[in-house]
């Protein structure tokens, strides 16, 4: 029985309802929230500022540091203990790597730009939502950027390629693959690619093609959020 009807009734390339807003945390230099379905990420940018510990400083350019965290009540089941985990450390690292290609910190040697991303509720696709929120927050902060980064979790559920997996699909009782993808908005170059599950080369290439269209929709929303922040009637 192939996966022809999605659990929540979406079309195979349809994203969950999205919402984005820039400038939601007044203390931060730049900030945003990004919501896709029931996954919600807040992002705040602090810096460029002095880096501690000092030995991390790069005299040639500033460093981009990302910190991803799930709030203790944001998981699908029991309370999650606050504080870092191996998972959050790795996700923080791949988020920074996904954003770095568009961020130009050459004007800020020895400094750091910290991006904090925290999620009050999650329903799959958290690292992608985190990247989308962080990208808006960096632009809101006025950090020099070549482009925006937009991300979505593509998936293959029982042989069908779908866009924006939710938790129900991620844990569907069949062969499932979860493929978070981040793309530079205008070039469609890939800055984050991970996968777990099983997939053929043909299906993966199809997923990458579908991701181009999906990330374009996200990019339009990111731009809209930034315009709403800076254009006043």
């Amino acid at each position: 029985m192939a996966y022809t009807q999605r659990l929540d009734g979406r079309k195979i390339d349809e994203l969950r309802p999205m919402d984005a807003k820039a400038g939601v945390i007044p203390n931060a230099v730049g900030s945003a929230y990004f919501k896709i379905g029931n996954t919600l990420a807040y992002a705040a940018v602090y810096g460029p500022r002095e880096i501690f510990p000092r030995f991390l400083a790069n005299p040639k350019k500033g460093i981009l540091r990302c910190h991803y965290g799930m709030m203790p009540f944001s998981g699908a089941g029991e309370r999650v203990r606050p504080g870092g985990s191996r998972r959050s450390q790795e996700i923080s690292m791949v988020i920074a790597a996904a954003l770095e290609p568009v961020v130009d910190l050459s004007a800020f040697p020895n400094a750091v730009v910290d991006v904090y991303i925290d999620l009050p509720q999650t329903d799959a696709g958290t690292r992608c939502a985190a990247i989308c929120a962080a990208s808006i927050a960096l632009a809101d902060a006025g950090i020099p950027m070549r482009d925006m980064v937009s991300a979505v979790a593509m998936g293959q559920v029982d042989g069908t390629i779908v866009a924006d997996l939710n938790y129900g699909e991620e844990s569907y009782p069949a062969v499932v693959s979860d493929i978070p993808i981040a793309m530079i908005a205008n070039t469609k170059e890939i800055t984050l690619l991970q996968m777990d599950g099983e997939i053929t080369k043909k299906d993966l290439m199809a997923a990458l093609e579908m991701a181009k269209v999906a990330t374009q929709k996200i990019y339009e929303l990111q731009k809209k959020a930034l315009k709403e922040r800076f254009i006043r009637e």
Partner: protein
Amino acid sequence: MIIINTETIKGLAKDGKRMDLRGMLEYRSPISIDLDISFTAEGSAKVTMGDTVVIAGVKLSIEKTYGDTPDEGGITVNAELLPLSSSEYESGPPGIKAVELARVIDRGIRESKAIDLKKLCVKPGEKAWFITVDIISINDAGNLFDAAGLAALAALRTARFPVVDEKGVIDYKHKTDVKIPIVKEPLPVTVYKVNGQLMVDLTVAEEKAAESRLTVGCDAHGVISALQKGGTTPLSAVEIGHILDIAIEKSSFLRGVLDKFVKA
């Protein structure tokens, strides 16, 4: 960036004035509460007080009862002052400010016996429900104590127990309509002394100019259920009397806000 005008704030306070033209005993307005901001929590609320934004989330779990209270469940309050919410906070384990915030809110709710813990018992001597309230700062623009206390109560009021199957396993995806047995609802009010004058709902810059503070937890009948003095300057008994009057009045103001946004 936080601009500290300590001397200006102190000078104004002496004449009963504030940088943002508020009265000394006036909260920032409007104060709003958004409910169910996290569908994964059993109850949640977001309090916005001026630029200060605080989230509280309630999680429920079934745990083994304690030996000295075999017929009771429990409640714990935890606070995370996220580096997302201010340039003054760093990643890592909770600092003393987060620990104090959690302890003061915890004392207000737990020690005042605001929750009927006996009603949380599932099987005496074996299993009971345990409540965890997590307080998370989103933007610290001052007065986290009062905002956090309001958020914690709003989240507790909206919380609903999850479904438990016949094997005793919790199904967190489905909620019942059973509420947490709240007996009374103490709300904290923090009164600061700035250059000898008493003030409520301080901004971060005002907090830095203050000499001392007293957080007072009050229930709907004006009964005091928690106290915490902070700062290094002493308070006289007369001053404490004034602070208590202010706290009792302001807690009923905050209770009005709570009632407006959250059904009891």
